């Protein structure tokens, strides 16, 4: 099993999920269950931090697209912190860097909320 980590820190209104390692077809289920759990708490803002991610494949991307779509339905704000070059490239190729909200720093959101 490839290495993958999800750290969740729940603030007042902002829940931050920090992903690390490789997000692929094997590790995606773990992220999916965490996402569902966090979304169940109905946070107003969800930040998904990709800075520690070393790899993402189409399965991982699909999960994040799903999280973004659900956020729009639930009227939740979801923002991403871009991962390293090779990871962010995947989003750029698919024009997701325009479709998703990307922020430089997760803490930036705490302040505005």
């Amino acid at each position, binding site marked *: 099993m490839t290495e993958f980590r999800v750290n969740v820190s729940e603030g007042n209104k902002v829940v931050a999920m920090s992903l690390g390692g490789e997000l692929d077809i094997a590790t995606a289920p773990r992220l999916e269950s965490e996402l569902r759990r966090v979304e169940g708490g109905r946070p107003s803002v969800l930040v998904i931090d990709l800075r520690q991610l070393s790899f993402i494949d189409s399965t991982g991307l699909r999960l994040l697209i799903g999280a973004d779509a659900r956020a729009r339905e639930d009227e939740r704000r979801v923002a991403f912190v871009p991962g390293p070059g090779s990871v962010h490239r995947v989003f750029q190729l698919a*024009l997701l860097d325009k*479709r998703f909200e990307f922020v430089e720093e997760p803490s930036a959101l705490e302040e505005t909320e």
Partner: protein
Amino acid sequence: MPSMEPAWKQAEGMRSAEGPPDRRRAAQYTVTRVLAEADTLANATPRILSTLCEGLGWDVGALWTVDHGVLRCVGVSQAPGIAAPRFENISRETRFPRGIGLPGRVWSTAKPAWIQDVARDDNFPRGPMAAAENLHGAFACPITGGAEVLGVIELFSKEVRDPDDDLLAMMEAVGYQVGLFMRRREAETAVQESERRFAFLAEASALLSASLNYERTLTKVARLGVPTLADWCAVDVLEADGSVRRLAVAHKDAAKVALANRMRRRYPPENAERGLGKVLRTGRPELYAEIADEDLETVAFDQEHLKTLRALGLRSGMWVPLTARGRTLGAITFASSDSGRVYGATDLSLAEELGRRAGVAVDNARLYEERSHIARTLQRSLLPPRLPEIPGIELAARYRAAGEGNEVGGDFYDVFEVGKGAWAVVIGDVCGKGADAAAITGLARHTLRTAAMREWRPRRVLVVLNEALLRGQSDQYCTVAFARVAWVGSHLRVTLACGGHPPPLVLGADGTVVAAGQPGTLVGIFPDPELATAVLDLAPGDALLFYTDGVTESREPGLGLTEAALQDLLAARAGDSAEELADAVEEATVAAQAGGPRDDIAMVCLRVAP
């Protein structure tokens, strides 16, 4: 007090010093010691009997045990100086049922019996031999360890003897002691047997799960069965056409194996009423604790077959089915011959368990093979059988699925004619693996082909595909690069649209490398995809490389062919043919992904002939 002299000598010494009752006690003490030191009853019997004869003043002793419904003789001994070979032989050969003869009546009544003169007894089948050896007085007592009779001890004398209550009482105690010994040994043996069975089952299971090559593993299991469980072990499987194939037969004597094989070839078991044929038909195990000649006659097809069956010397047999998911896949045969082993219910349940585990192993192996076959067939059907010949254009394609043999990859490519002098080149990557991804791959290729016939703008083609995927059941998406190429004079005009796919690379004849096209939305997720059209002209000697992200994927920094490295690689190869370029990229990709590619690799290389 204790000395190194043999038991009987000590008793002798004591006899001269003291009267008969003490001699008896000494004999009893000796028997106790013999039992304490012995490992089996067979080993202890001669010493027990000679001690009793010597110590108690009798001439011949015999010990019997209950064995599968009859009393069998374990041993016969004589006092020193006494010989009674004929009586000994007849005793060793005789089996007594309950109530018959001296041993039989003691077994039946569970009480000692005294015969003053066997010549006058009407329930003494060994009479003639006793008379020949001049034996007259006899008594016997049961060997018990508690409840039931386990055997009988007999003593004979050349003199007529009157009943001796004291002797009887003492012998009852001896019988009880021997019985206790037997019970203890039986318990120990049962534990050892149980441990052996368990170890066998564990070893067989390990063998079965070690490999998917069930033919090899079942052969190993058959060999494992000999001699632990059986003298003979054979495994047969049912083939799809209903025929029975013998996978393995094991016996320590190779000549016997050859004999069994010859017999199998001549007399197939499918038609047999009993044994293997029946088990294969019914899926239920068969146990033949004692194979009698009548049983052989029932299964034999003719006299020749019967003779061969007899030659195998089968004593006891079990046939258990190989079962999995409620179906009978074959059978395992266990049979004893030389060892004389007799199978019982415990053996059968062990064999049945083995049959279940082996059946599952065979089933799994077949399922895996089937699945691999389906996957390979499916995979083959999803890729274009060969690239079209386009005059003036070199074409090369590469495909490597990263998964195991039974997994279908998600990458696809296609090159096909869309009009006079116009072709479509497509490359794509469906999210995921396996059957779901394969279904989308099929849908994508088909949709792209049909759309490309109607729409000549690549952007529109991708929009059609996007809608088709959105309409579909799954939430799968794909990345696609779609290009329409057509001759404009001596140049090849490429009109291109990319949906979430790495842009194809243009390698100019002069060595410059440029990425073509703009990023676009993934195909099949959003109803409002943003797709841009790029147009470029290729001159003779220029090449265009379409690839999937498996080529440039890197899980670890420093490993894998980056996009920049790919561009450099191409730049260094200006002038190479399409095939050469495809080879170079594939080699570099595989080399850069030490440990094997984790994602599928696909590429199409197109070059305008110089």
